[in-house]
């Protein structure tokens, strides 16, 4: 066994990981919003599944927001961050506490979610951090 193995690796930063998770779940939500009134041989789409995915997406969006905490921001941007946080928490609350959400309500929630994440992604400037490390095992 080569004990002097040297390797490089790249780990995505937290924000990137939340972006990927959020993007993936949004794709699933769009599929449900498109086919939610269609029953197929293999699958029935319903609002409950849609609500669960939206809840997950809001969680990822909050994670995305938290991952920008080390960013350099102006006071104005910090205010926007706070508004986005409150807005996302309100969405999560609506998804949990309101069992009677309609298709229109879910479309509204989807719209607000994308709107907030779009704002979050334009926040501040990341403080540079090394993403690649060379480690030597001896």
């Amino acid at each position, binding site marked *: 066994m080569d004990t002097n193995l040297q390797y490089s690796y790249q780990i995505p930063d937290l924000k990137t990981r939340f972006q990927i998770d959020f*993007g993936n779940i949004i794709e699933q939500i769009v599929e449900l919003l498109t*086919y939610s009134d269609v029953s197929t041989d293999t699958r029935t789409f319903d609002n409950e599944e849609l609500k669960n995915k939206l809840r997950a997406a809001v969680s990822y969006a909050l994670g995305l927001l938290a991952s920008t905490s080390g960013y350099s921001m102006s006071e104005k941007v910090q205010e926007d961050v706070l508004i986005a946080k409150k807005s996302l928490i309100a969405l999560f609350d609506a998804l949990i506490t309101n069992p009677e959400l309609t298709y229109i309500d879910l479309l509204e929630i989807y719209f607000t979610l994308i709107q907030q*994440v779009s704002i979050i992604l334009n926040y501040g400037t990341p403080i540079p951090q090394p993403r690649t490390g060379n480690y030597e095992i001896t």
Partner: protein
Amino acid sequence: MERKGLYVDFLFSSKDEFKKDLIERVNKIKDIIEKVEKKYGNNNKVLIKNSAIIDLKETLILALSYLAMLTSDKVKEYKDKVIEKLAYIRENRILTLDQYKDAYNLLQQILML
């Protein structure tokens, strides 16, 4: 890192990329209208359903996402119109040619924001 799908692309790039895809899909809706008109004429008794409706729904949801990325004063007005169309389609599943063309016009207006 692997990037897949339009929504992931949106997260990594800009709304311009998203708009490009929306334009392509709106053009597809235009093609559907042209094909229907070529076959049946401009006849409002013609009903649009099945895959053409799915294409329209996908495009309207994409337009809704695009609107969420904009800061124009008109965003709310158009967002409400898109949601209204989607809700109508969900209820009825079938559109007349005029209703389909109306949705296409709405999409075109959104692209001009």
